[in-house]
């Protein structure tokens, strides 16, 4: 071969320098690789050890059972039941997207529903399992068990779920729980919550969530790369949520629920000595059990589109004209100002003020304060309002908590409205016209109050000016700092003492007692019980006072009643609102009377004194009590 000659011709050596330089290149390369290894294995080893553990060890939550809720006597209101949920693990190195149709079929979901859940959790850490479906049926659990190998990304978890009373019993008070919303997650209050957590959404469940929820525990489970459990390292036991005792009396609540059956409105009963809520009913109601598991669209739409707002807790959220119940506050203002005592008004079925005729529903003839309350004479209060002027009325009304939150420990309490010159200027950039005060005198016009505000205000006046902050749980159940946090979260006018002269106190309370004897609420007179109260019939459409017709349908007047027993320093106050109920005396007062009666009977039963007293006990007047006290002091 020609090439052969060439091959033998070349005998030059390759330069040793070049070969040496390759040796240096090798050495340099190995040093670089060693440096990389040093960085990983010596400098950052601890970081990577943590990551390796995170890979291998997964925290599987052990759900803490939520605290149960009892009534004031320890009777169970809200329980838990065991339930199984399905979670999806997104970390395993497998293409679970392809499994979605199979998963959807087995869990009776649609692929769209699953993808919606996935989207919701797309920013959650990958190692965190995401809840696919709650409260699995036995065949769904069987599906997951049977497909452990094909669908290792599915995991079941034992959970405790809420079991609420049936039929929406006390639903607004208790509230319900649900998965935390994205909005809530951004709030400071929920800083330590994460997506998927079940939280109280309303009522007691929301306010006392931190107490009720306890702390979830966890198991440290060793898994392989497919997420299969191959061992367990340790376990942190869950701390169960704390049980709560509400101030609610189950018996009274049942009476109230029955009384409100089929009505639209609200009823709240409170112990004016302490502010403890004894019963709280809002109608229409909803079934919180439907919210405990994933809500069906139909039910949600039904609730959402109901014109009567079933989700609204009307005892604290309804803001309506208080009607004649406001006359107690008017009387308080008039008496304290020294105006009402000597006022004598001739009611000729109304009167003319500022050139307009304002009607009263009857010809009451000569009326003084002692008769104006039980008769609910509008003409008297038109006159009183004219003489007091709006800002004086507003001052007294505000002092008893109108246009202020009461500070009850439930979310989303309404404020209400008390008109005044300042209020008008601020909200309407207009001056107050003197004539507008007339309708305010009978609780119409722009005055708006909730049942809880009226219950607190009227019972506060009946308690000699001691107003309490309403609350729904018994004292001493939550840590002091948490109690303080709740007070800060739900600010309001709270506990306070307003000035009320004893003689004025006596006039108002005696007159309220007279209401159930000879006054507007005589029909609901409770034999043997010192029962006092005030009815109200508030126009809905035409806020100008004096319209004598009740209206019909949605234009029908709202019926109010605030009753209490005994008349002074009452042990119970009940505020009743029946929307579009018509006359307060007919639609609302009987309901309130039933609850007051049930309360007194229970008290007497407990005291072993069931014999009905034939004669209504006549309480000592404040003046007599004061004299007695002085006597005992001098003795």
């Amino acid at each position: 071969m020609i090439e052969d000659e060439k091959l033998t011709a070349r005998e030059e050596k390759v330069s040793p320098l070049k070969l040496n330089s390759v040796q240096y290149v090798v050495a340099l390369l190995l040093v670089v690789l060693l440096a990389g290894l040093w960085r990983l294995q010596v400098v950052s080893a601890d970081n990577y050890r943590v990551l390796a553990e995170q890979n291998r060890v997964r925290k599987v939550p052990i759900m803490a059972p939520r605290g149960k809720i009892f009534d004031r006597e320890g009777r169970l209101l809200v329980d838990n039941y065991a339930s199984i949920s399905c979670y999806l693990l997104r970390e395993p190195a497998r293409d679970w997207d392809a499994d979605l149709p199979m998963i959807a079929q087995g869990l009776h979901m649609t692929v769209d529903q699953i993808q919606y859940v996935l989207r919701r959790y797309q920013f959650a850490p990958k190692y965190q399992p995401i809840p696919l479906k709650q409260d699995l049926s036995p065949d769904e659990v069987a599906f997951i068990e049977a497909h452990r190998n094909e669908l290792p990304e599915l995991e079941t978890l034992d959970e405790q779920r809420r079991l609420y009373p049936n039929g929406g019993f006390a639903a607004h008070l208790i509230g319900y729980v649900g998965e935390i919303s994205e909005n809530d997650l951004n709030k400071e209050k929920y800083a330590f919550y994460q997506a998927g957590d079940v939280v109280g959404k309303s009522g007691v469940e929301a306010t006392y969530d931190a107490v009720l929820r306890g702390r979830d525990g966890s198991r440290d489970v060793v898994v392989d790369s497919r997420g299969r459990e191959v061992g367990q390292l340790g376990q942190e036991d869950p701390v169960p949520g704390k049980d709560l005792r509400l101030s609610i009396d189950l018996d009274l609540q049942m009476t109230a629920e029955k009384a409100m059956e089929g009505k639209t409105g609200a009823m709240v009963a409170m112990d004016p000595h302490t502010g403890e809520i004894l019963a709280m009913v809002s109608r229409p109601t909803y079934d919180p059990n439907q919210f405990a598991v994933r809500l069906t669209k139909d039910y949600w739409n039904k609730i959402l589109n109901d014109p009567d707002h079933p989700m609204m807790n009307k005892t604290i959220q309804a803001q309506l004209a208080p009607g004649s119940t406001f006359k107690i506050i008017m009387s308080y203002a008039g008496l304290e100002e020294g105006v009402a005592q000597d006022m004598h008004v001739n009611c000729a079925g109304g009167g003319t003020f500022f050139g307009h005729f304002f009607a009263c529903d009857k010809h009451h003839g000569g009326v003084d304060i002692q008769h104006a309350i039980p008769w609910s004479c509008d003409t008297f209060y038109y006159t009183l309002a004219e003489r007091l002027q709006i800002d004086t009325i507003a001052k007294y009304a505000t002092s008893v908590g109108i246009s202020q939150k009461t500070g009850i420990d439930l979310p989303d309490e309404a404020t209400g409205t008390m008109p005044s010159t300042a209020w008008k200027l601020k909200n309407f950039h207009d001056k107050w016209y003197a004539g507008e005060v007339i309708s305010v005198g009978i609780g119409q016009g722009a005055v708006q109050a909730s049942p809880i505000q009226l219950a607190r205000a009227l019972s506060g006046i009946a308690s000699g000016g001691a107003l309490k902050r309403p609350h729904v749980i018994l004292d001493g159940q939550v840590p002091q700092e948490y109690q303080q946090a709740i007070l800060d979260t739900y600010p309001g006018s709270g506990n306070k003492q307003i000035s009320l002269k004893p003689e004025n106190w006596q006039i108002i309370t005696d007159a309220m007692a007279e209401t159930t004897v000879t006054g507007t609420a005589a029909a609901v007179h409770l034999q043997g019980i010192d029962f006092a109260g005030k009815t109200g019939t508030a126009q809905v459409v035409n806020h100008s006072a004096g319209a004598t017709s009740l209206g019909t349908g949605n234009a029908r007047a709202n019926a109010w009643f605030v009753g209490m027993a005994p008349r002074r320093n009452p042990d119970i106050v009940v505020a009743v609102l029946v929307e579009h109920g018509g006359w307060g005396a007919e639609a609302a007062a009987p309901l309130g009377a039933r609850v007051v009666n049930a309360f007194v009977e229970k008290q007497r039963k407990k005291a072993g004194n069931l014999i009905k007293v034939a004669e209504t006990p006549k309480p000592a007047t404040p003046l007599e009590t004061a004299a007695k006290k002085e006597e005992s002091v001098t003795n």
Partner: protein
Amino acid sequence: MRRFSSFRDFDWVLLGFVLLLSVISVFEIYSATLHTKFHGFEKKQLEYLAVGLVLMFIVSLIDYHQLLEIVPWAYGASILALIGVAAVGTRVLGAKRWIKFPGGIHFQPSEWIKLVLVVAVARYFWSLGGRDLTWKDIGKAFLLVGIPMLMVLKQPDLGTALTYSPILICGLFLGGIRFKQAAILILGFLLLVGGVWRTGKLLKPYQKARLTNFINPDNDPKGSGYQIRQSLIAVGSGGVWGKGATKGTQTQGDFLPIPYTDFIFAAFCEEHGFVGALGVLLLYFLILMRLIQNAQTAPDPPGTFIVMGIVAIIIFQMAVNIGMVIGFMPVTGIPLPLMSYGGSSVLFTFMALGIVMNVRMRRFVN
């Protein structure tokens, strides 16, 4: 006058280092496959090693000058084989790399072409007689390596194709490329890469993902980012002393991808720590130094070229594989010579060593 070579001149020291590394490799393959369906691969690796040793001795008996003589035919046969793969090859996971023979034997020509190219490049540069390279010489060298490289690239098998490049670079370097020429080539290469990078920037994300899949389609079911991440965790969590043999959580828990082939070094680092890794790198250093020494003592330039071509391939594969394991390099699917499991890799390495032995045994010839 050619003296018959004797096994006294065989490089027993080199073989000792190589076998030590192979034993380490077998133990690590055992550990990495312990809890998987690939359990038992260490025994197959032992079989490959045995066959490899036999092949090495046989090859060491063949005078490398004979190889130099027949290499044009071998080169032609290689090109034909690649054409055959493209025409009748078996498609595995989207890539045509294999020719299937009756009896279940799969033949992957691209592995063996490495050896052919080493010898072909040695012969080519020897034929130039050590003169300063002209641009025409350089162009021919590029064609010599570039033609099979492009064909393998089209299979597609970027990893193997890339391992051809160090043969060319080594040849040019030793063959006398001038500094100016090298500078121009490097500059041109950088501009080319830069241009590709820029167009890469213009690409849509899914196209980029396709590029990644192109680099290594079969080993990349969950994205190369996941593999690198798991590899870094494995290496890093090994720490200084390692977690102990068969005790690597990343390796045993199946988090580390293919821990017996491409990522075997990560598995080793996890279980034996920085100290173990240092030992293995030291072994590579000794093996490479020994090889380069053999290149220096080669009786003639083609002997040096052949040994250095093999050195270049080993350096390249080692740097790319370990670089990948510790996050310096992208995932390319290049195995670690002498450690990764696999018949082709083992047989290639030992045949290459056989040639090196032959070169060494002839150092006093002539």
